[in-house]
């Protein structure tokens, strides 16, 4: 219904351009090393992947995403930045307007039948049949997979339930499940078979801290078995804790991607001086040519924090400290504060992360 009504909002012009873009060269990789996309190669690779919805809205714009095999890949971005649209294109649910997407070395959505059995997915939260028990939900999803062996179905379902800690509630109707239990059941559905790739969209949504920790442990465990995990989350510290690589999206575009350590390093840390003589410290730092000096008043007696952009690499920090002390500033703390992924994110998108809510 939404689509139908959206289509009427005048998209003739945009459709024209989209139509011509569809004919972008479709690289045929059916033949070459289709099955042997082993270690080292990319598990997900998109080139200029673009999706324009019928209303004319550009949801994903020229995405070049590379997810290395064996990585735990964090996919970051505020709501409406195109994360879910990207995931849906990767899973063959949505046809890209232009560009190509390869998953496990095969083009999507064309090779969906060969690729998807090796992929477990949790997309935009779990979806269950409320009138079926948790176990029957999993049995149904498993029977939808033509490669799943019906002889081992019950055993695999039981193992998946056990893995997410739902064995005790397996016989309950899914509509009686709490959000956290539904989330676990969704995860169990992704774990019905051994997978080469797991795509998890906000997997810890609705879970209590203990549940979140369990899921993180599960993700690490799966990753150590060699499964590539593609994890979208709005919890930066979660990404920082679990992920080896990350990509940041904003407004349909990919802003940055790479190993988490490099991304965080990209945002420069800050110089922090703790002192009761804040004004003097700020003056000295400015005299030394350090920019962006900010004085943060601390609690009574604790002294203020003076922060500044971190000095260029050729400056010796000891020299700076000496200059402060020489000027009579009582330095109680002096050092560089590492940039967090959140700093990197804010620097990249220019907005706070909690826009995602």
């Amino acid at each position, binding site marked *: 219904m939404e689509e139908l009504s959206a289509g009427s909002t005048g998209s003739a012009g945009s459709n024209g351009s989209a139509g011509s873009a569809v004919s972008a060269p479709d690289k045929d990789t059916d033949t070459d090393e289709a099955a042997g996309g082993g270690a080292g190669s990319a598990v997900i690779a998109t080139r200029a992947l673009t999706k324009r919805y019928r209303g004319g809205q550009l949801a994903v714009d020229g995405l070049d995403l590379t997810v290395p095999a064996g990585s735990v890949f964090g996919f970051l971005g505020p709501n409406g930045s195109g994360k879910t649209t990207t995931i849906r294109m990767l899973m*063959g*649910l949505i046809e890209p307007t232009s560009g190509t997407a390869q998953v496990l070395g095969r083009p999507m959505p064309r090779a969906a039948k060969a690729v998807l*059995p090796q992929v477990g*997915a949790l997309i935009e939260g779990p979806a269950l049949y409320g009138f079926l028990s948790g176990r029957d939900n999993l049995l149904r999803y498993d*029977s939808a*997979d033509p490669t799943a062996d019906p002889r081992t179905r019950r055993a695999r379902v039981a193992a998946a339930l056990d893995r997410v800690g739902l064995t005790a509630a397996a016989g309950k109707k899914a509509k009686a499940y709490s959000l956290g239990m539904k989330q676990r059941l969704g995860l169990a559905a992704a774990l019905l078979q051994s997978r080469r790739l797991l795509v998890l969209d906000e997997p810890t949504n609705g879970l209590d801290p203990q549940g979140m920790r369990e899921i993180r442990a599960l993700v690490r465990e799966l990753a150590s078995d060699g499964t590539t995990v593609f994890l979208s989350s709005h919890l930066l510290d979660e990404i920082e804790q679990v992920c080896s690589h990350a990509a940041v999206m904003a407004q349909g575009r990919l802003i940055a991607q790479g190993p988490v350590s490099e991304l965080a390093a990209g945002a420069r840390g800050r110089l922090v001086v703790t002192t009761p003589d804040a004004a003097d410290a700020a003056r000295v730092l400015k005299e030394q040519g350090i920019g962006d000096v900010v004085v943060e008043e601390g609690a009574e007696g604790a002294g203020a924090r003076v922060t500044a952009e971190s000095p260029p690499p050729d400056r010796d920090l000891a020299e700076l400290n000496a200059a402060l002390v020489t000027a009579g500033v009582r330095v109680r703390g002096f050092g560089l504060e590492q940039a967090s992924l959140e700093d990197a994110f804010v620097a990249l998108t220019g907005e706070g992360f909690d826009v995602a809510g």
Partner: protein
Amino acid sequence: MSRVETSRAEAMPEAASQAARAPGLLWTFGLFRSELVTTFRRWRTIALLGVLAAVPILVGIAVKIETGDGSSTGGGPGGGGGEGPAFIAQITNNGLFLVFTALAATLPFFLPMAVGVIAGDAIAGEANAGTLRYLLVAPAGRTRLLLTKYATTMTFCVVATLVVAASALAAGALLFPLGDLTTISGTRISFAEGLFRALLIALAVAASLIGIAALGLFISTLTNSGIAAMATTVGLLITVQILDQIPQLDALHPYFFSHYWLSFADLMREPVYWDDLQRNLGLQALYAAVFGSAAWARFMAKDVTA
């Protein structure tokens, strides 16, 4: 049931997998079985079947009470089947006629409405619940899922019709005498022959629902709201029934899926008058082909955003 399934089963394995035989069969039946179980475990499905089972019982009791009063059962009240064949007058003589009466009474509305609910909900209901995306990434395969949904809807057509027939037969046997019966043409046939004709009629009625099932499935691929799809399908059913009554639209009538529905009564002639029955089957096949293809084309190109 078996007809639809086996023809599908024969068609599948070729396209399904070029690999071993076993996966081919699993490919076809794993999801179909799951779909059947899921559909028939729904309270809604059971309620629909319950209503359908109640109709013949109510008709039987109404006829029984009316004859109990001493008045002879004319072609008049109670039936609710519109201008259906006058089987109702014969119920008091032979309970088997309750089967024909019940099918004639439920075919214009109750049966197609039930089928419209199941067919309309087939894809849209899954989209509404979000389960469609998980079936597709399983991966169920769009063609396979659509075929499974259609096969399940057709199975429901047969089951629903048989529920009406069985309930009518049970009520007829309890309330009225059974025995040899007179065909519309006036010849006598044995009770066994009558039962066989009843089964044929039930199958003809089930086949009459092929068209609306395909139409409902197509509508179901257009929207993400199961309720909207069901309402549209049932709305179309009523519209077509009304249009079929308007004489000025005479030229269009032969193309309405409901136009030849009551042709099943011709199976009670001696010899059977096949012309309208064949036209009905041809028309249903046409609807299945047209709207089946439309549903397929639409579903293959659909962006699943729900």
